[in-house]
């Protein structure tokens, strides 16, 4: 297991209910796990708990078998390439400089980037389809370009696993599909990928396993067809849905209007 959460409990100060109330989750090499669920269900908190940026009230988060708090951050950055939901850089770097930030965990405080660092960055920018933007400054990018540049930075980290929080939130159909195709291809090369998303149908198409999180608890987990059933979704999202089968083992979710019932 690259990432493993056991009985994760997180309570934010002042909140009446815990954001995570005992969540188990594992991510191995060569698998894509999607985390879905309603707003406020604990998805982002789960990522932070696994990656050690929020304090645990109970449970353990392990990175390649070690408690995340005992892994130096630079070492963690060489294992996990994470792209959080929001990020507002204070200064307008060029795209290539920005992707090089993903190499910092591989460099000392002063050592200049090596030929390998440059090659990794070029490869990452090319795979995320933003090599052509490398001389642009990041404040001039569209929402979709920005998202892909951040993914490129995570690839430049040369990690064992990728962790994305709503990577397709600002993307149109083509760019959303391309990003997940890229993620799937990387998983095919042996990386693990943990993706938080609201796009149930994309999760159904691309994920090996889906974890459905609501009110800080795992409601269902397993293959897409096991998790995305109309009874479960109706209960968790409190909205009627119809679930059809798009292909073998691939459910397709359509939210219903009152007139459909």
């Amino acid at each position, binding site marked *: 297991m690259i990432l493993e959460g056991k009985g994760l409990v997180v309570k934010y100060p002042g909140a009446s209910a815990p954001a995570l109330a005992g969540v188990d989750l594992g991510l191995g090499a060569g698998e894509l796990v999607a985390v879905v669920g309603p707003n406020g269900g604990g998805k982002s908190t789960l990522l932070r708990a696994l990656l050690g*940026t929020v304090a645990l009230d109970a449970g353990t988060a392990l990175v390649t078998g070690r408690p995340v708090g005992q892994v130096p951050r630079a070492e963690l950055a060489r294992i996990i390439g994470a792209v959080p939901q929001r990020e507002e850089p204070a200064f*307008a770097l060029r795209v290539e400089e920005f992707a090089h930030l993903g190499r910092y965990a591989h460099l000392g405080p002063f050592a200049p980037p090596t030929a390998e660092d440059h090659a990794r960055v070029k490869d990452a920018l090319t795979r995320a389809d933003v090599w052509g933007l490398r001389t642009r400054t990041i404040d001039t990018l569209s929402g979709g370009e920005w998202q892909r540049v951040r993914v490129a930075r995570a690839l430049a980290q040369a990690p064992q696993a990728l962790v994305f929080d709503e990577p397709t939130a600002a993307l149109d159909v083509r760019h959303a599909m391309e990003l997940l195709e890229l993620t799937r291809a990387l998983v095919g090369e042996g990386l693990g990928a943990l993706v938080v998303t609201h796009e149930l149908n994309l999760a159904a198409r691309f994920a090996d396993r889906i974890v459905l999180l609501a009110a800080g608890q795992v409601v269902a987990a397993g293959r897409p067809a096991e998790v995305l059933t109309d009874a479960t979704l109706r209960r968790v999202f409190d909205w009627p849905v119809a679930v059809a089968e798009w292909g073998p083992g691939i459910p397709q979710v359509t939210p219903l209007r009152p007139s459909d019932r």
Partner: protein
Amino acid sequence: MKRLLAAGAVTLVVAAIGLSVGAVSLSVPEVLAALADPSAPGALIVRDLRLPRVLLGFLLGGTLAVSGASLQALLRNPLADPYLLGLSGGAGLGAVVAIAAHLPMAWGVPAAAFVGAVGAVGLVYHLGRTSSGRLDPRVLLLAGVVTSGFATAIMSALMVLSDAVELRNAFLWLLGGLGRASWQSLGLFLLWIPIPLVLLFTAARSLDLLALGEETASYLGTEVEQMKRRVIVSTALLTAAAVATAGMIGFVGLVVPHAVRRVMGPLHGRLLPFAFAIGGALLVAADAVARVVVRPIELPVGVVTALVGVPVFAILLRRESR
């Protein structure tokens, strides 16, 4: 490399000007002669007055610019300057208390200003800690503003209650200047600054990451809390020493990082050394102007840096908003 040479050339030219101008004007050959030969005419002025003053000005300007650049990245706020975290109010209050208590201007006032500045930052640091021991930059900013405001209120009350001579002394001291520069003050400053400066220069790559936000910085390999403490403590020690040495010299720490960032880009590995050089050169130049513009009276150098810094800053802002 070209830019490095350009920064070096600017520094040398500014240093030459700084050594030549003043109440007595000397030509560059006269300055060189005085530097080479202690018995040359003007040697006393150049060696004992202007050389320490130019060197101190350079180090002070560089220190303020590097502190400002570091804090702007840490607080992710382009308006941050080295005095932001309560330093200005604390130092001013310390100095005015010392002046009101008739402590010696030579050492009592600087020492009190240093204590005031460090005390104020300590209070801000304490207020900026959340219950879990993390430092919250937004709370730090607010704590800095209110701490400075409170200290300034006490300082103003003391100044109103003091007599005319004290009032003038306090006012001049607060405006800042290099008029008290000596080999002794240069030596003290030089002993003080290397460790915090090295701590900031070696944090350059962490500052690049912190400027993205704490969560991202952490995912890219920064020990965030450790780095925040390092930057705040280092900039506070540097700025407190700068204030104790030459009073409150404004705008160098705010404007220079902006200007250098436009030319060198925002990566701190390049930004910090160039900000040091340009900040140093700017303060030496401003001090030269302060000495000659209304000769024989010396303007406080803080007035000159503000008169130059504000229009430059306004122009930069206009350009950036376009």
